[in-house]
């Protein structure tokens, strides 16, 4: 009870102080702009999403028509220097999502016995820093703090406490080393990603080398074998060493990620001007350490920028526990590819359900103001495919319009089957 009240207190306090800072900012924007003690950045965007469902599961449920939803997403990042060596970082996301798709999602999730709205607004941190104002089958309205931390710097030692993003990535696409905040590739309009409630100690052993020790407490919300959603407290604790040598960055880590013992290494460098990065991670269940097998997840990434600014990228990911047949054969189509798309239940071990996936991307500025990009993922085992074309238009200095497609094709129970096609229009104003 005390614990719950404490959470509530912290949440409310954080919310109120952020709102107070916000109003202060609005009234004295110019004054603050000149004063580096407080830095406020952020954006407000309008995102429309049209979903063209494809798959037998939807027709069985009578969902044959195009679906539509919109969202107004607003983000504030506050960075305040209390003292020279003490910084506060708070980021607030205000989300209002509405449209008929929400009712459809609710209907779909009900089939599996889950509450879509509840899951969509879930806060998997140790503290619940999400304020759910109001929701129904037509809309969701909530505020989430995905950063709220204090950072203390003592010469070469840095301690960060609170909700933060601990990013151990080296690749640009798949990040098996990102054991604290693995992210869902398809959630393109949330690049910041949720934070972890964690303590991070960094010791810089040189200008380009460091030791990090991080511990995170949070929750996972996954269906158990009976299909009942279970919320369990999990911890991730790991140490990492990072250094630069031979024009390469290297890192190696070991620790515990949720139920697994883990270790891994990653690198970032170049070959003949092309970016060459990689991450390899090993996992083994710690409860059944003796009688389970090793899981290896590895991804290698290459990219090259040509003189005409054409950017090309190739990447592959290997998951030793991944399926060599239809990727979701053992999960069922409801908890398969589609729910994976909606939920943030990805971790470094489950970046893909396939034994191997291949990624390719080309991006080119047609004019300095218009950039086109097409990315694709192919699963060679179940032959399903994802194609993501994007066009971004810089309308003014701080206003951008994007048209994004997320097109999925595949048979039922394949990695990219049971979804259909998604079209997005995004208008984003940064400040």
């Amino acid at each position: 009870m005390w614990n719950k009240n404490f959470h509530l207190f912290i949440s409310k306090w954080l919310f109120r102080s952020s709102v107070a800072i916000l109003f202060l900012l609005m009234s004295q924007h110019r004054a603050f702009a000149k004063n580096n003690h407080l830095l406020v950045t952020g954006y407000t965007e309008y995102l429309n999403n049209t979903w063209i469902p494809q798959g037998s599961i939807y027709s069985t449920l009578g969902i044959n028509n195009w679906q539509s939803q919109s969202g107004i997403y607003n983000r504030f990042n506050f960075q305040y220097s209390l003292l020279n060596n003490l910084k506060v970082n708070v980021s607030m996301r205000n989300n209002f999502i509405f449209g008929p798709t929400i009712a459809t999602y609710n209907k779909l999730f009900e089939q599996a016995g889950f509450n879509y709205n509840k899951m969509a607004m879930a806060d998997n941190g140790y503290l619940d820093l999400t304020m759910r104002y109001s929701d129904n089958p037509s809309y969701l309205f909530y505020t989430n703090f995905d950063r709220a931390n204090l950072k203390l710097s003592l010469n070469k030692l840095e301690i960060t406490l609170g909700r933060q993003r601990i990013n151990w990535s080296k690749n640009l696409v798949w990040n098996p080393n990102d054991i604290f905040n693995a992210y869902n590739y398809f959630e393109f309009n949330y690049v910041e990603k949720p934070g972890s409630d964690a303590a991070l100690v960094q010791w810089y052993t040189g200008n380009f080398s460091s030791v990090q020790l991080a511990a995170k407490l949070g929750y996972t919300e996954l269906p158990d074998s009976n299909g009942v959603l279970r919320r369990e407290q999990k911890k991730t604790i790991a140490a990492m060493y990072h250094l630069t040598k031979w024009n390469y960055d290297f890192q190696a880590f070991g620790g515990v990620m949720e139920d697994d013992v883990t270790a891994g290494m990653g690198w970032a460098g170049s070959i003949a001007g092309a970016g060459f990065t990689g991450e390899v991670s090993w996992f083994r269940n710690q409860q059944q350490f003796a009688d389970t097998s090793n899981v290896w997840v590895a991804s290698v990434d290459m990219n090259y920028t040509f003189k005409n600014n054409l950017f090309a990228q190739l990447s592959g990911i290997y998951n030793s526990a991944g399926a060599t047949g239809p990727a979701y054969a053992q999960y069922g189509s409801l908890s398969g590819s589609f729910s994976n798309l909606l939920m943030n239940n990805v971790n470094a071990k489950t970046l893909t359900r396939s034994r191997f996936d291949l990624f390719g991307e080309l991006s080119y500025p047609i004019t300095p103001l218009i950039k086109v990009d097409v990315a694709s993922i192919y699963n060679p085992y179940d032959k399903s495919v994802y194609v993501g074309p994007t066009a971004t238009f810089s309308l003014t200095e701080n206003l951008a319009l994007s048209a994004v497609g997320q097109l999925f094709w595949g048979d039922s129970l394949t990695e990219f089957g049971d979804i259909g096609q998604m079209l997005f229009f995004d208008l984003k104003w940064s400040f």
Partner: protein
Amino acid sequence: MKTRIYSVGVLLLLTLFIARPAHAQNQPAKDDQAAKEIVSKSFNLFLGKSSFSTMTMTVVRPSWKRSIEMQTWSLGDDYYITYIMSPARDRGQVFLKYNKDMWNFIPAINRIIKIPPSMMMQAWMGSDFTNNDLMKMNSIVTDYTHQLNGNEKIDGYDCYVIDLKPLPEAPVVWGAIKMWIAKKNLNTLKEEFYNTKGNLVKTETASNLKMMGGRLLPSHLEMVSNIKHGHKTVIDISHQEFDLKDINQNFFSIQHIKNIQPRNL
């Protein structure tokens, strides 16, 4: 991944433009030594052991313009840090260059990205300053012959007019360059770049001379295309310092680019 990593090239190149440490200079055989000396001295005006600058680069096109504002610290030839002040969505991004290594810190995702060499050459928004203009500026001393070709007035300053022709084996793109250098303070106030066919391709002008970092330097630079009407790139230097006392190699660290604050000027 939709993470934005771009514009690195020009950022880096601009830093080189602002603080260019001295290079060993080959003396070509046939040359007008007086003219060469003037060009060399003009070039050296921007040199320093270390430097700090705040500048805005604006790419101007007939129907639009975009600006980027940054602060840059440098030490010698090997160390650079660039902090992006605007546009808003990139504010707080930091670039670190040490020798051949380059990193980009993106605060929104709390990540350091190692920038591969091919990505460093990207131009920002189609800027009219090319790699050659910026990175190999010292080549105007070493890769060309220099001839005094009279006197002209630019913005009220008496200027030497100097013709540059590339040396036979020089790795340069221009067929000829014409420079106007102020007699009094040796600032290069105008430069014309000609292609190998002898056509004028673009013109750079420097104006608004100010005392910056204890030196009289131009604070406004324009590179105007003579081929594409209405195309130009403008650089405004609002602050410049040389030989900073509080900077050493440890300033240019991974730790520092995660924590650096822009200077209040």
